[in-house]
């Protein structure tokens, strides 16, 4: 069939049949990197072809298909059907471990709730970044509690039922205390140097260590 078309063209200089012209236009539109006008198509097709007519046939052929013939200005291009655009997106869900800063902040909220940001900072010895709190809020593991009746009436944080559900706890009071943690061997005595006071871990980048004064106050407690 294609060979026939070619020999026909060459011997008689007659235009190939319309079906053949249509597949030629289809191939050119598929392979070009930019929309192409009917005039340009005519220039690329064998002598005597009628790109405009072939385009009409092609448009009809692709009606309702996953691909459609789009007109863009003077040019034509094959495009995936607009209703299938969602297939061109891939959503990947990535599960990541919470950063050390987030875990520590979360732990302090769970053990000390309701707790203010200043109190969290006091305990951790570093300032708590807004991003960490926002992340925990967004995960719905913490929420705002009542304002504290101290000067400035700071907001407090408490853990949520989602938090309790995730960690399989009935109440936050069920969390083991320090002594129990130690007895259970959960207090790792060989801490990596990262956790030494003053040393920052990567995820703590936006956290500024508190001044020495603040820190020593804590040790005196």
């Amino acid at each position, binding site marked *: 069939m294609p060979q026939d078309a070619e020999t026909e063209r060459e011997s008689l200089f007659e235009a190939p049949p319309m079906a053949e012209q249509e597949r030629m236009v289809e191939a050119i539109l598929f392979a070009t990197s930019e929309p192409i006008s009917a005039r340009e198509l005519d220039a690329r097709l064998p002598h005597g072809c009628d790109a405009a007519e072939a385009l009409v046939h092609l448009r009809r052929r692709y009606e309702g298909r996953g691909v459609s013939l789009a007109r863009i200005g003077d040019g034509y291009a094959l495009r995936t059907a607009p209703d299938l655009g969602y297939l061109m*997106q891939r*959503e990947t869900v990535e599960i*990541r471990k*919470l950063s050390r800063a987030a875990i*520590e902040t979360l732990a302090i909220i769970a053990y000390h709730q309701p707790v203010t940001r200043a109190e969290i900072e006091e305990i951790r010895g570093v300032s708590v970044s807004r991003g960490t709190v926002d992340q925990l809020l967004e995960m719905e593991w913490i929420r705002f509690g009542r304002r504290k009746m101290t000067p400035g009436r700071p907001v407090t944080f408490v853990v949520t039922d989602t938090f309790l559900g995730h960690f399989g706890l009935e109440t936050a009071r069920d*969390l083991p205390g320090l002594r129990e943690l130690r007895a259970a061997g959960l207090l790792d*005595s060989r801490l990596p140097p990262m*956790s030494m006071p003053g040393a920052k871990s990567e995820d703590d980048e936006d956290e500024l260590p508190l001044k020495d004064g603040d820190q020593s106050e804590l040790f005196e407690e």
Partner: protein
Amino acid sequence: MADDWAEAPGAVAERLAAEALIVDVDGFEGPLDLLLTLSRTQKVDLRKISILNLARQYLEFVEKARQLRLELAADYLVMAAWLAFLKSRLLLPPDPEEEGPSGEEMAAHLAFQLERLQAMRDVAARLMARDQLGRDFFVRGQPETVTRTRKVTYTATLLDLMQGYARTRTRDEFRPYAMDREAIFSLEQALDRMRGLIGFAGEWTDISAYLPEGFGTDPARRRSAAASTFAASLELAKEGRIELRQSEAFAPIELRRRG
């Protein structure tokens, strides 16, 4: 030599062909390629080729090249030597004492190699004659990129939580502990130190000479350094890098490099 050429039928054409080959010797991809080209002059199926004739042609070619003082790469000469050997094997009656493959086996393998090389060239040509991407058929010209949206969910375990809490609450406890370590000279440190030093231990030396600086006076530090240095020297002795000796119980332990 020239007489031989003249006597043979079709000699002129053959000689011209041979000379053309010599001039073009750089164009050959090794002796096998040359043999394959020579074998074409026999104008028979490669399976029916006369290896004896081919060996003669090749040796004549090499001889002619030497007369013309053309430098032939070593592998052409290795092949020439081997073909001369093969020729003698094929011509002389087989020696029952002789070990190794027979002349016929060697000839058969050479014929196989030539046929295989020719076959690979034929299919290579067929492969390259196929329709090729970017020349005869084409990919999509306007690829639409798939946008990847990445959704990250974070997780943590109860253990993470408790350890995290413990970490924040006990941070102060680790400070004196960190100071403790200053009095400890670990086995790793001792090994590192001794590996660097034993190169110079040609003579018997008291092991106490290997104690690190600053560990000799404070009893606690001295104890730690002595223990780890002794353990490290045992390790090095096990590796066969040093020798140890001690004249009697509680006498100084001495070491020296081995070998």
